[in-house]
């Protein structure tokens, strides 16, 4: 459908589910109250690395009001995971980070749960702790997983250990080309562990049904993987597990359980419900979340680049040590992504990077908003400025010089169909006043670009049902955390069916009724569910036209739906109400049910044939640094994005602004801090610092048009990409202001001040 014909797509109607949220209805998981429910709680490891010698639950079980106390012994001996099945829902024999679940209790009240947890006696044999991902690979490091083999790509004589993922980027002959380069820059960059800190705590609720099925409620991003994980770890067939999703108060990849060796609170809750023979609900508290649920990993990245005097990049080598945490989780995928992206998204004729995902005794890596990307971009985009400085070249010009053209390849993308990168750089320069704005003392300007790869990954389906009154019910497998079910999906269905957006309801996922889906992750909402919903709506429309054609004595090809009427194009008097046709369907096909799916293989084939269109971005900012305290204030911030055709314009901007803000937080104030024993020192919001409104600049967003993506109407995903550039953008502005490069995140006052002092500038 050509853009000019779009009636709804591209606008910004009111959010579906907005009214419930502004009047305070209990739409979230945490608002659930099951009849007769017990409260559940989890006992977590007190050591970052230890053998479990014994667990004695007898005292806990005696407490009045306690209905179940479970340990690994109460669950099948089954492990789960994403790349490797290296984890139990409750630790068996060993704990690998402080926060690892060891036992769980169901009792009449939270106070009794607390009491009972204290009475569980666990005897540990502490083991040496590994906290640094690079150190953990060395021969003298403690071994975290005795029975997990090293990836086959690692030679035995490399004498490395604790590696669960190995990715190699190899293009051309990097060693040779580096030796021939005119200028070489060699640097190390480091990022820290971040927790996504969605505001709604994670919950799970479970009950055994009279017919023996287990129902689980979860505020999880991936209900089908939750079903898979519960069924597998509790030994129940899939058709006897039902997962119902609630609304989510944020997720950002951190509530992607099932995908990731997540917190496993759903299987633990199910186990408690089975043993207690009553419904059980577990609500984590935010301090507990910080130490136990999945996080954005820290990484150490070695990056070396050779260039010609004229600024052409000729070679890159590098090494990544990506921190998986105690279990592999999503670490292998995220580490792989980080390694690929360390090759950059510029022309790169020669490249060799080794990336290792490493076990350490810390929280587990999850698919947190752009996993691997922000870390790599912090290194790549800071490094680009260092190279530009050595060349004596303008940083924006240096980037433009190495920007690919349509038909070119970059690391990880064999063929680019079109390239918006250059345009985003030019617009960002203009919006920030690059080369024009007058900077005061201690002020600096910075620029950073980014990219993200979306199209790889499983697909998903959609079911569109047209009810007897012409209203529409949509089933997809993705959930609402401020994502597509409230915004793009009802718009796409309304667009195709010619009904008002407010007549379309997207229902919460119920694995008994919704089509399978990998989950609401990876910026794949609009691509997967958007494509599927569009096709399902078109399928429904075709069924409607086939039935209506008979009544209107016309060909289905001549029909259109306008304002809930099916009519013959050009003869508006010949019409029949959508409701009439939908009701008559009872006698013909039963019901109008449209089915659609996102054919991932087809998408990949298209990209192979025609090339892919990456969602490039450039951010730019102006900062002011206090040279005596290291405080950094962002005075102006622009974000220029190619996201193809935005479906819901305000929502797309909102995703960009929110993702940028999250990475601005990672840049300036967020990190999980550990002591030498692996204990998290800042679990609560008192000391885990998230950006507040006073420190956030107005993020001025520009959407670039003309580069259609693989999604419906040419959409590209928008959920993660804006997380990629901000840290380097701010670091580059700090460098411009002070002449000092800060290589380690966060760019907190202390880290900036220390860097200034070490450089003799404070």
């Amino acid at each position, binding site marked *: 459908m050509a853009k000019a014909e779009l009636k709804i797509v591209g606008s910004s109607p009111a959010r579906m589910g907005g009214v419930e949220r502004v009047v305070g209805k209990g739409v979230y998981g945490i608002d659930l109250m099951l009849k007769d429910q017990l409260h559940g709680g989890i006992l977590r490891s007190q050591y970052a690395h230890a053998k479990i010698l014994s667990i004695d639950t007898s005292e806990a079980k005696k407490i009045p009001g306690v209905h179940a106390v479970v340990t690994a012994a109460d669950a099948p001996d089954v492990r789960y995971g994403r790349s490797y099945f290296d984890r139990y829902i409750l630790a068996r024999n060993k704990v690998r980070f402080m926060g690892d679940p060891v036992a769980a209790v169901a009792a009449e009240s939270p106070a009794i749960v607390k009491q009972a947890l204290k009475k569980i006696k666990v005897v540990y044999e502490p083991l040496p702790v590994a906290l640094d991902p690079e150190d953990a690979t060395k021969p003298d490091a403690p071994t975290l997983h005795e029975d997990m083999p090293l990836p086959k790509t690692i030679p035995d004589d490399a004498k490395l250990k604790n590696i669960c993922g190995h990715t190699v980027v190899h293009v051309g002959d990097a060693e040779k080309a580096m030796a021939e380069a005119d200028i070489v820059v060699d640097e190390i960059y480091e990022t820290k562990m971040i927790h996504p800190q969605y505001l709604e705590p994670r919950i799970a609720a479970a009950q055994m049904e009279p017919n023996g099925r287990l129902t689980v409620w979860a505020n999880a991003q991936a209900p089908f993987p939750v079903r898979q994980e519960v069924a597998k770890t509790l030994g129940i067939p899939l058709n006897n597990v039902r997962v119902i999703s609630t609304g989510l108060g944020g997720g950002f990849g951190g509530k992607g359980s099932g995908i990731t060796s997540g917190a496993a609170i759903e299987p633990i809750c199910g186990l408690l419900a089975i043993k207690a023979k009553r419904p059980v609900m577990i609500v984590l508290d935010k*301090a507990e979340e910080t130490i136990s649920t999945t996080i954005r990993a820290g990484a150490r990245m070695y990056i070396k680049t050779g260039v010609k005097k004229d600024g052409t990049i000729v070679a890159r080598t590098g090494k990544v040590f990506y921190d998986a945490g105690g279990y592999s989780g999503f670490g292998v995928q995220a580490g792989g992504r980080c390694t690929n992206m360390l090759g950059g998204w510029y022309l790169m004729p020669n490249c060799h990077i080794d990336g290792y995902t490493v076990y350490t005794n810390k929280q587990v890596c999850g698919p947190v908003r752009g996993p691997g990307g922000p870390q790599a971009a912090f290194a790549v985009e800071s490094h680009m400025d260092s190279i530009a400085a050595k060349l004596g070249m303008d940083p924006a010009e240096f980037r433009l010089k190495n920007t690919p053209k349509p038909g070119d390849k970059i690391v990880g993308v064999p063929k680019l169909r079109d390239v918006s990168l250059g345009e985003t750089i030019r617009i960002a320069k203009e919006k920030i006043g690059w080369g024009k704005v007058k900077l005061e003392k201690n002020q600096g300007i910075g620029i950073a670009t980014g990219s993200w790869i979306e199209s790889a990954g499983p697909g998903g389906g959609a079911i569109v049902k047209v009810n007897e009154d012409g209203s529409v019910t949509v089933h997809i497998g993705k959930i609402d955390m401020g994502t597509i079910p409230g915004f793009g999906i009802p718009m796409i269905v309304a667009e195709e069916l010619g009904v008002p957006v407010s007549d379309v309801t997207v229902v919460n996922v119920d694995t008994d009724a919704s089509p399978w889906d990998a989950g609401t992750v990876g910026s794949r909402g609009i691509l997967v569910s958007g494509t599927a919903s569009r096709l399902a709506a078109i399928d429904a429309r075709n069924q409607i036209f086939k039935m209506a054609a008979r009544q209107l004595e016309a060909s289905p090809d001549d029909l259109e739906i306008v304002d809930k009427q099916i009519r013959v194009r050009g003869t508006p008097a010949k019409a029949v109400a959508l409701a009439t046709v939908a009701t008559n369907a009872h006698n013909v096909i039963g019901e109008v049910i449209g089915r659609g799916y996102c054919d991932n293989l087809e998408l990949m084939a298209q990209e192979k044939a025609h090339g892919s269109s990456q969602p490039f971005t450039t951010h730019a900012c102006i900062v002011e640094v206090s040279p*005596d*305290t290291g*405080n950094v204030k962002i005075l102006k911030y622009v974000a220029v994005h190619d996201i193809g055709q935005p479906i819901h314009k305000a929502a797309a901007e909102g995703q960009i602004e929110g993702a940028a803000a999250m990475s601005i937080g990672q840049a*300036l*104030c967020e990190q999980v*801090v550990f002591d030498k024993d692996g204990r998290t*020192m*800042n679990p*609560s919001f*008192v*000391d885990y*610092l998230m*950006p*507040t*409104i*006073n*420190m956030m600049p107005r993020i001025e967003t520009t959407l670039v048009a003309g580069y259609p993506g693989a999604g419906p109407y040419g959409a590209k995903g928008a959920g993660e990409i804006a997380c990629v550039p901000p840290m380097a953008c701010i670091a580059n502005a700090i460098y411009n202001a002070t002449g000092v490069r800060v290589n380690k995140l966060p760019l*907190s*006052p*202390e880290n900036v*001040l*220390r860097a200034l*002092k070490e450089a003799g500038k404070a």
Partner: protein
Amino acid sequence: MEYFEPKTVSEAVALLAKHGAETKVIAGGTDVMVDIKFKEEPGGLVNIKKIAGLSGIAENGAGLRIGALVTIREVESSALVREKLPVLWESCHQFASLQVRNTATIGGNICRASPSGETLAPLLVLDAKAKLAFADGEKTVPFMSFFQGPGKSSAGINGLLTENEIPYPAAGSKSVYLKHAVRGAMDIAMVGVAILLTPDAAKNNAQDVRIGLGAVAPTPVRASKTEALLRGKPLTAALLKEAGALAASEASPINDQRSSAENRRWIVEALTRRGLAQTWKAATGKEVA
């Protein structure tokens, strides 16, 4: 958990004499409620908000009397405090969030005796006094000797802070409260520096200088050596440099999740210099020479 709502000071101190070891006094609750949820529930709570006579800000000769139950927001909203005790006003203005300021009390902030308590360094430089009630009588304790360690004060487990007596600074005095934090909202101070500077009549010298440091020692402290260095002198850049370094040496900060000790010393140095320059200019109209 027991719960008491005494209606008078004598009722309250009688309760504390008997149960002080197992109970906690609760006023606004912004600290104590967190203790209850995340640490141990105490044996009992003594809710003092029903006690009459502990609220109110009133002039008391050449100073102000601020009741223990006055909320931080009430202090912040007081034109009298803003005009007469601006250093206290500034610390209340930078305190946590609006929601917290609406319930947290100045008495609670004081008796919590956290080294980083926002109002504490200002109270030290103002030479304020705490009025304490016990079952066996009252006493008035200067804040200079009130704080004894993290969480420890002259109130002890049996005492009740009833009000604060804060004399007005000498005429011509200027002050500032500088808080070092990451975000500028809701943060607990990594370092707090309160400075009160009184020029001589001719506005040539710093007749009196008082420097209060928060979050860099087991209690809030006065940088008395630095004060002595500056008293009676005109402020110059060289003197400020020396003063900053000396103030940093008078701090005994720790490494914690908020900051390293080294960084805290750097900040003490930086904010002492900044604060002295600012108050000197405000008091004398002159830039530091």
